[in-house]
């Protein structure tokens, strides 16, 4: 069966509208199962009214992102923590 999702790099461009740092190497902790891993490892479902990124371990929704003509909506309630490396 073909995958119906793409990898978490699909979030990097849209998140760049909101965050001043590059999030492609950010590490996120799943609120559902506690698994920690990089943004790029998430399963992103994009054939939908918005982007839905799920934990590769438990499939819980970790990030949701939708753009309307006037706003960007970001929901991170499935993400317990987000760690971003600072430029050295």
């Amino acid at each position: 069966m073909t995958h119906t999702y793409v990898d978490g790099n699909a979030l990097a461009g849209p998140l760049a509208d909101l965050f001043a740092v590059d999030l492609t190497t950010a590490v996120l902790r799943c609120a559902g199962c506690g698994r920690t891993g990089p943004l790029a490892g998430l399963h992103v479902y994009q054939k939908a009214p918005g982007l839905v990124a799920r934990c590769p371990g438990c499939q819980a929704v970790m990030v949701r992102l939708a753009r309307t003509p006037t706003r960007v909506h970001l929901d991170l309630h499935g993400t317990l923590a987000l760690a971003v490396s600072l430029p050295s």
Partner: protein
Amino acid sequence: MSIVTPGFHGRGRPAADLPPGQYLTEDFPVLSAGPTPRVPTGSWTFTVTTETGREYRWTWAELLALPAETVTVDLHCVTKWSKLRTTWRGVPLDTLLADVETAADFAVAESYGGYTTNLPLADLLDGQAWIAYSYEGEDLTAEHGGPARLLVPHLYLWKSAKWVSGIRLSHDDEPGFWETLGYHEYGDPWREQRYQGD
């Protein structure tokens, strides 16, 4: 830059009998916000929960034993495709809710896999909504929401919850999965109610 990708199946020709901003498609695009739930009919149930917590539950066999209707309706997705004259078979919500004691004004449809969507209870009644288990004469496939989905064709298709597991009735309008992410609480395609504030 585009986050949402309306028209990712390619733009069809516009048609006069479409709601504003929609284009016609002949195929049936599969939209999904997660892995496709595979729910065996042997363990499938449909539960109506009232505002007092009372539950009314049907098994698959009990659903199939209820009087069903065949309806031909147009579908309008908020990602801008419309598909006309689709034929479904299912049980009207009027039948399932007939003996349910409630004073609620609102409903939340809940799905296997965790999806939710909210709508006024009145929009589920008077021949406007069905629990559909057949599409174009065939069993409804899991990709399109089988074994059974909610069908509320007068609203944008995100209201027609795939893999429906129940309806929760409430005095309050509780926004669902897309309604909490900027989409309209009601979603009338003829008034182009795509987003909050439309």
